[in-house]
């Protein structure tokens, strides 16, 4: 992770990027090594992006980049220059009412400690956008990149199914 920043009088090398985060353009000068997850958490205050493993297994940091989910701990902020990012903070309506996926997770008790939840919600969002009526097998495939340590997944299936019904209405 080390760069040639050490000992340089000019400080670390940075690059100016602009990323649209939940509809707002954010321009910042960042080191090329800054992870997208850290950019979102610390430069954009989107704390709903959780960092659980930093090597792409747990999926807690899942966000949507140009409509597709990415694990934001596996890419660098500079790679998202010009992209549109959506995080869990962007889901609820302006009047504060929850997105159907958020609502369904709440009603079915599909979260306990909640650390993995933003990642699951974002993965479920992509799944339902592509497939509004997924089978259990399709939910399994769609959420296989995320790990939950508390709920045991059963209620997560139910949440996704309930959200699918709501979103179709």
């Amino acid at each position, binding site marked *: 992770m080390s760069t040639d920043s050490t000992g340089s009088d000019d400080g670390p090398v940075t690059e100016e990027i602009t990323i649209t985060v939940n509809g707002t353009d954010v321009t910042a000068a960042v080191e090329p090594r800054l992870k997208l997850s850290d950019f979102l*958490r610390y430069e954009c205050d989107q704390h709903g992006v959780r960092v*659980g493993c930093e090597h792409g297994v*747990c999926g807690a940091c899942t966000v949507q980049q140009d409509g597709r989910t990415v694990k934001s701990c596996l890419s660098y902020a500079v790679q998202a220059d010009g992209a549109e990012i959506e995080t869990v903070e962007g889901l609820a309506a302006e009047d504060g009412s*929850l997105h159907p996926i958020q609502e369904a997770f709440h009603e079915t*008790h599909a979260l306990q*400690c*909640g650390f993995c939840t933003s990642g699951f919600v974002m993965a479920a969002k992509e799944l339902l956008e592509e497939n509004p009526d997924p089978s259990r097998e399709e939910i399994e495939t769609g959420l296989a990149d995320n790990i939950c*340590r508390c709920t045991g*997944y059963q209620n997560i*299936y139910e949440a996704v199914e309930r959200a699918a019904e709501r979103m179709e209405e």
Partner: protein
Amino acid sequence: MSRSQPTETDADVTAETERESFTGQGLPRVEDHRILTGRAEYIHDITPENCLHMALVRSMHAHADVVEIDTSEAEAHPECELVLTGEDLRAEYNPMPTGIETVTTDDGTEGTIEEWSLAADTVRFVGEPVAAVIATNRYVAEDIADLVDVTYDPKDAVADGLAAREDEVVVHESVGTNVVDHERLEFGDPEAAFEEADHVVEGEFSWGRISGVPLETAGVVAQYDDDTDSFDIDCNIQLHTLVDDTIYETLGYDADDVRVNVPADVGGSYGTKIAIHRYCCLAAMASKALDRPVKFEEDRIENLQGGDMHCSDREYRMRLAVDDDGTMCGLDVWFVDDFGAFPRYPINQVLKPLSVLTNSYVIEDAVYEYDLVLTNKTSQTAYRGFGVDPHIYALEMIVDQAARELGMDPTEFRRQNLIEPDQQPYTLPSKNLYDSGDYPATLDRIEEIIEDERDGGLLDPEVVAAKREEGKYRGVQPSVIIEPGVSGSDWTDRQRSDREALADRPRDDVDELPEHLRAQLREDGTVRAYLATDSSGQGHQTLVSQLLADELELLPSDIEVDYLDSVDAPTEYGSAASRMAVMLSGATVGVAEALIEALEAVAADHWEVSTDEVAYRDGQVERADGSDTLSLTELAAIDAEGEKRRTHVSYNYDHPATDFEEFDDAFSQKLPVYPTAAFGANAPIVEVDVNTGEVDILKFYTVRDCGTMLNPMIVEGQAHGGIAQGVGAALLEEFGYEENGQPQAITLFDYLLPSIENVPEIEMEHTVTPSPFTVTGAKGVGEGGMIDAPASIATSINAALEPLEVDAPADQIPVSPAHLRSKLREERQ
């Protein structure tokens, strides 16, 4: 620096319509809204202004002398604020408290074990921190950590618990042995039982190193205050009011000068986060040196490799004495528990299995013997079940084996030996009591469920036979398993006690830990309650608001629930041992009574009548003659005029075993006291591919009883999560080590957590047998699933492979494909 988030009215409480009983309803949680919208503040989210960041330099050797630590290059880095080494700590601070400080060897010599937050002379496991670097941000701190040059002189290491007993390599030369604790407990007359029984069945079983692996790693933000010479520490430690001594004693400060605060949201703990005090101490020391806040976020590799978070690692030799007619006569449990490099506080988990020594069976004569050994591996901490899970697993394995040797059906063998309902409350040979339950009926019910699968379902004989042709063997073996709940604490000092003196110890000397709850009437007529305990997803805020609403005849949205930090809260036991539902519900009833009494007194004084002439009802106080009422808002205003707030009350709910003299023997002998016994029967239907050794759980049936279900949704959620962790433990998870002590699982690519693809569909039924020992009839339920699923999955694997006549195929946890393949090949040769 309190940052906890109280429940708020914007957290919707959808189930409330009108006043009704909320207890027993699956009320959705008040915690969810902030989490789902990304507004929850976990420890990683807390970064005060002016905050510096810490990175640690860790040993890559399992055992080595530290020859030199050269920090000059690191300190020359322009963004380096501080480098701390073990030498720096020794000048100013104390070692961290350990579970066993003094070890007396057979020849009578005494040696001490010291663990420092940073190693100085010797490193004893891969990942042990040797230096701490503080810099402007985490990236730079890690850069600078790379510049710290440590010269090691590697030594031989020992990484196997059984081998470590030979003392060829000694982890702590100061004590001269790796066996730092040993005990042999005998109950009844086991010698006679084994001599007189028709058969003695023997087996060896091993339980690999696993852990909770919460998705949120450890984190801490420490801030030293120069004016008051005190510390504020935000961290995600578990049991923050109990284990805060590991922090303040290391720092050498009084408890009141070290304020430990845990955020309202913690990303999982499962017991494992009680041991993160090293990070708290180091961040605090750095903060004091720099007079700025210092933050540390553990990364996943640190967490898995050397994060002080591993759990039980045991080798068992079990013996069961049985008669020809299938009566279990005697049990002999012997095991070695590999504790890693230092004996931490969770040494107690070698003893907790005594609370369920014979599981659900009547066995009156038993031996329980263990060696607690040290090796060059990461130190152990607690994990959901606290050492009971390996015990239940090994016991169920020997029961299976005995049935097979007797030629009996394993289910019938189990049924014949179950504790009957008319024997409840049942006193175990190890002095603990089970409170209530009908175990035979539970086994009957799970048998009925399986019968349905045998008739055209997953276990239909034709389907099973056809699958066998493909090399896929299906099977199931149910058993009834107990979850001990609601620990008293006194037994946890057994290892540090003069054991001979325990025989005559008076009951009055026993300390038990109550649970503390506060309630305050606020100006707007709402009530705010304060928990003395931390939470990591169990829904404590929901539970208290739901129960308090019932007691006060209010709505849950009239109640806010917040947390106390370690200074404000009394030293109570907190979130552990499946205590919280029982202890918080008991405390809620008590604190509500205290508040009602206070409200009546305030009203009576206001009206200048006696308290007999007023009554609290439906959120207000009424005069008995019906002439007047005072609302909670009015009462708050009246109370605010007085010198002392009478409507600020607190209550300590005593440990439920306190009032029952049946527990006196266990208490006075410092044996584990767990006054609730949730129970259940599991029947996971498994399919073993005999070519690959892979195990697929087709469906997990379970019938469970935890007494009164205060919030069924939370109860089921706990069970789902526990079973998922049990599936991981049984089939996937293990911290393997090379012989030289190099850890083999340091990423989530190596340490395999169950994903949605691994956890089967769970079909759960509940029965309700209230506990006669607790105020609400609830039993502890927080560790279920993890305690029972590994044993049940293992017995089902044995049942599936029975036609192949393999000797105990599931004799180790995890039952990995490689292990099963080698067992199957051995048998074929």
